[in-house]
């Protein structure tokens, strides 16, 4: 288990380094930043000065290495727009995004798992049809569209919930549900199929032949065995949630890193974009590691080998 953890941590570091390399490459592909950082009437001397100031006059490989070593110490450079360290700006906006993503995740798990179990138990009945209908809608609607529809219905027409901002719990409801809808659909589908698979297994028949009550069969044996693919999927979905947050935060004016990233892209604030990407990568990698460990814990065959 310890070697597994060590190996897995190493993989996280490799992943983050890889992402940083891609980010560095993308920045180079975007071209010379001095052109849009300086006013059009700036002289060539001013441009070269800025280039030196940003360290962009050095050889590429030196730039790359200093970029990585700086990043390792949490220094991504100054935000070109705000003219202050980029990473702290992101860190300040990060809790709002985490709150949104975890609320969305909580919403999707709490609705999807019971609904998935129910659909598996009442297979081919109206419950099952209803659940798969929800799943299709949840997966087919793009978040920016479902978000606008929800605003139209719950904020504009019914006036139940605020459509923007981050004041109070009510403001969290619409963005969290919108963001979690797609994840909910996926989790529900895998819960249903995984439960159906497990409940058809020989060992469930064995338990039934032992005279064990159905709820014990369902939760102790059924859900416990079905949990591994569900947990694995939830881990993967968090990436989708963080990505979806970029759109959702814009639609609902939620002050998180998603909106920050969109604005940073508009103003070509590369250090800020890189800081957002770094934070999302780190979060995603750590969550995935946690989920992998959790899956290993759930499966004795992995745990003991």
């Amino acid at each position: 288990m310890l070697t597994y953890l060590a190996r897995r941590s190493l993989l996280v570091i490799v992943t983050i380094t890889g992402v940083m390399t891609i980010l560095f490459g993308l920045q180079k592909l975007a071209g010379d930043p001095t052109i849009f950082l300086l006013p059009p009437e700036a002289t060539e001397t001013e441009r070269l000065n800025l280039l030196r100031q940003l360290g962009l006059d050095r050889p590429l490989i030196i730039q790359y290495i200093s970029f990585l070593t700086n990043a390792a110490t949490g220094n991504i450079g100054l935000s070109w727009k705000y003219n202050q360290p980029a990473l702290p700006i992101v860190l300040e906006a990060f809790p709002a995004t985490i709150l949104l993503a975890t609320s969305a995740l909580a919403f999707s798990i709490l609705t999807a798992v019971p609904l998935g179990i129910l659909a598996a138990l009442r297979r081919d009945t109206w419950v099952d049809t209803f659940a798969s209908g929800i799943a299709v809608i949840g997966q087919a609607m793009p978040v920016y569209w479902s978000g606008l529809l929800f605003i139209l219905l719950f904020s504009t027409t019914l006036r139940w919930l605020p459509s923007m901002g981050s004041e109070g719990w009510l403001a969290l409801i619409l963005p969290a549900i919108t963001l979690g809808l797609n994840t909910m659909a996926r989790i529900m589908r895998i819960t249903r199929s995984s439960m159906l698979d497990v409940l058809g297994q020989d060992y469930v028949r064995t338990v039934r032949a032992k005279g064990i009550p159905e709820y014990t069969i369902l939760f102790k044996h059924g859900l416990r065995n079905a949990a591994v693919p569900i947990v694995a999927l939830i881990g993967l979905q968090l990436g989708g949630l963080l990505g979806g947050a970029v759109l959702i935060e814009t639609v609902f004016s939620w002050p998180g890193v998603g909106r920050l990233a969109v604005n940073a892209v508009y103003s070509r604030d590369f250090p800020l974009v890189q800081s957002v990407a770094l934070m999302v990568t780190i979060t995603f990698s750590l969550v995935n590691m946690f989920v992998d460990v959790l899956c290993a814990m759930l499966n004795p065959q992995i745990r003991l080998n």
Partner: protein
Amino acid sequence: MNAPVFQMRNVSIDLDSPKTPARRIANGIDLELHRGKTLALVGESGCGKSVTALSAMNLLSAPLRISEGSILLETEAGREDIARLNPSGSQMRAIRGRRIAMIFQDPMTALDPVYTVGDQITESLCQHLGLSRKDAWKRAVELLRLVGIPAPEQRARNYPFQLSGGMRQRVMIAIAIACSPSVLIADEPTTALDVTVQAQILELLRGLGEDLGMATLLITHDLGVVAENADEVIVMYRGYVVEKAGVDALFDNPAHPYTQGLMASLPPADGERIELTPIPGQVPAITEDIVGCPFASRCPHVMPKCGETMPALGAISSEQSVACWLYPAAAEARP
């Protein structure tokens, strides 16, 4: 012979289908199990053996169901017809694993992979006998010792994947006998195992059956297993009991042409090399409608009458009955 502890009387099993009429998978099965004795249920794949076994536990689930007949179990409280009980009700649950226990065919898949074997044995002990976790665990270790697992204290903490197939089947047996049931149903308990392990498992089952006074229903397609382990034999074909006999009578004088065919396709025990005679053809598919005897299409002695009606089981001696028109004195049309 004393009164049977378990009886199936005229049990029929139907396969319901939303579009076509229900199909009969088993027709009027009669069988009796006695304390300490083993009844073997023989037949090839698809003849209705396993369905009959599951029905004995009232474990059939839709679209299969017991459509008629009674399944009588002797308990201290008297005789109970478990075919009348709700299959998922609490009364049936109190019988399963407590009065009637079952061992399944494939020990590789019949144990829950995420719990230790000790935990899986304690489950029914806690459920039926109300033992505490600690006492149940002690008892589970005892049971593992009883079924011949070395170092049972350590093995109880193992997960199924850490045990060999033979060991897992021993665990299954330990689970089955945990609450000292009066009836044990073993559905092809050795089919998935190595030949050398097969013999050990069967010997264990026979010994336990005699020691604990359990009545055993042994389901198998292996006549060698029957000859070694059974006291009585029932031969099934396409949902019908075609012959019922004491084990010696059956092997000395197989009466039904199907039983004779099965015997002829067995290699002789003395190792003499002879040409085996297979039964031509196949078991008719379950979707096929059959009038008369289902074996008629493969029977070397087929008569016009066979295509019209299926005879009922009739006695040809004190310990042998057969359902075949070749024995006109015994045969009569099924009601």
